[in-house]
């Protein structure tokens, strides 16, 4: 206990004595984590959208212009039902589209209350007897009058999955580089403190201090740097995402038929990831900076 309180006190006083470098390393790690955070939020949201799309994999939706009447829509349904390979064709009114959305959103459907009017278009939803005929059906039906847009999920999903793959690879490479940079920055910061305390360390070793007694404060110093950076980064990414959801969730909803991942999920996960990463980076950085020092 005595040793622990000594170690922590010493670590904070070292941080204080070395303000500029400490803030520089906090800033570097924080910037790295913010980039990591952006990728993370992007990833989980793209995944959610892809997953939601997959639920509707077996249907193709043809959105109708707002001026298409119910009668016209029913006539279209009749025509489509007679086409080969169409097993089902259903007319979904604007009102029904809204209800479906409310169901899908469950307890978060209150978010829909804020929308002005009903932004969901009416649509015709068809099911093909085999996925391989979908493309052909889309081609035929799209030429009909009154159809504004086709949501053909097979394509969308493939695109999303491809994008997810690219983002993941890119993120991993970038994060790897940034982690290395962060470790180097921290280790240089700690090296400065070690250097400033070189005399003291030598004296401590002569008097019989164990290596862990000497290392302890530097290790804690590195970890504190990591923790501060991770909390700052989590707050910044969390707040930004919160604001983003506020501004864009209804747009995302309309564009992708999908909600956004709630910010609480993002924040909880980022805090865990960031703190674990921050502590590891800090510890690794300080261990590297002391290697030379504590051989014997």
């Amino acid at each position, binding site marked *: 206990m*005595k*040793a622990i309180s*000594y170690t922590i006190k010493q670590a904070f006083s070292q941080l204080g004595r070395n303000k500029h470098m400490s803030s520089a390393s906090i800033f570097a790690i924080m910037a790295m984590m913010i980039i990591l955070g952006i990728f993370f939020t992007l990833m989980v949201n793209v995944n959610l959208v892809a997953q939601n799309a997959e639920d509707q994999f077996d249907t193709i939706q043809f959105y109708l212009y707002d001026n298409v009447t119910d009668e016209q829509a029913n006539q279209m349904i009749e025509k489509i039902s007679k086409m080969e390979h169409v097993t089902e064709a259903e007319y979904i009114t604007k009102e029904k589209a809204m209800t479906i959305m409310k169901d899908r959103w469950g307890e978060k459907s209150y978010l829909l209350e804020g929308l002005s009017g009903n932004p969901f278009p009416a649509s015709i939803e068809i099911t093909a007897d085999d996925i391989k005929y979908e493309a052909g059906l889309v081609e035929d039906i799209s030429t009909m009058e009154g159809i504004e847009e086709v949501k053909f999920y097979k394509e969308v999903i493939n695109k999303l999955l491809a994008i997810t793959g690219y983002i993941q690879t890119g993120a991993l490479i970038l994060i790897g580089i940034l982690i290395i940079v962060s470790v180097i920055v921290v280790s240089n910061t700690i090296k400065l403190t070690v250097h400033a305390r070189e*005399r*003291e360390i*030598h*004296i*401590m*070793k*002569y*008097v*019989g*201090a*164990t*290596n862990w*007694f000497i290392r302890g404060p530097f290790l804690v110093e590195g970890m504190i740097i990591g923790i501060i950076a991770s909390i700052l980064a989590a707050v910044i990414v969390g707040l930004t995402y919160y604001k983003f959801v506020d501004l864009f969730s209804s747009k995302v909803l309309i564009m992708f038929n999908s909600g956004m991942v709630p910010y609480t999920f993002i924040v909880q996960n980022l805090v865990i990831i960031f703190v674990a990463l921050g502590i590891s980076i800090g510890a690794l950085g300080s261990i590297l900076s002391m290697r030379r020092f504590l051989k*014997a």
Partner: protein
Amino acid sequence: MIEFHNVTKKYGDNVAVEDLDFTIEKGEFVFLVGPSGAGKSTCIKLIMKEINADSGTIIIDDTEVSNIPNRLVPKHRRNLGIVFQDFRLLEKKTVFENVAFAMNIVHKSKREIKRQVPQVLSLVGLESKVNSYPNQLSAGEQQRVAIARAIVNNPSVLIADEPTGNLDPDTAWEIMTLLTEINEKGTTIVMVTHAKDIVDRMNRRVIAIEHGHVVRDAEGAYKENESH
């Protein structure tokens, strides 16, 4: 207490000590003398296990130093108080803190530290300087702080590498008086020095080293022909 048996240490081709052989008994006060580069500091580093011998054995307190694993080196050093020519005090800490620091390292309680540090400081005659900083002290006083730090954990040996090298003769002699007192309390003392007058006046055992070899080991004066 301290035994060197045929100890050799080389730095590349440069022989620091070779076939060094001597034994220091518990409670002795021994001078290690010799010209610069003779290998005196090397002996101290070997004793502290700051460096390892290439061959031969060193035994301290019945333990062969080469058998001490790295993780137990700190424990080994706690049994050896050490004092240097340049004091090596921490400038930003008070006299009290400089001494307490050695007790912190061995995880002594606050209460023990509060009891023990003033005792040791009064032993070295610095009870009135407890709250001073090193730069407010004379050279002699700084060396006393260093000695207090070295003995506060009750080591069985006090090693001093030219402790009077930076002091004027009177102050040097005061330090010698203090070391004598500490020795009389039972602490073995090994002192490296160049100071012929001090060695002559102390009239103790003198181990003279040249080119890494013991050239003389006798009671008395710095040089043979001046022995009593």
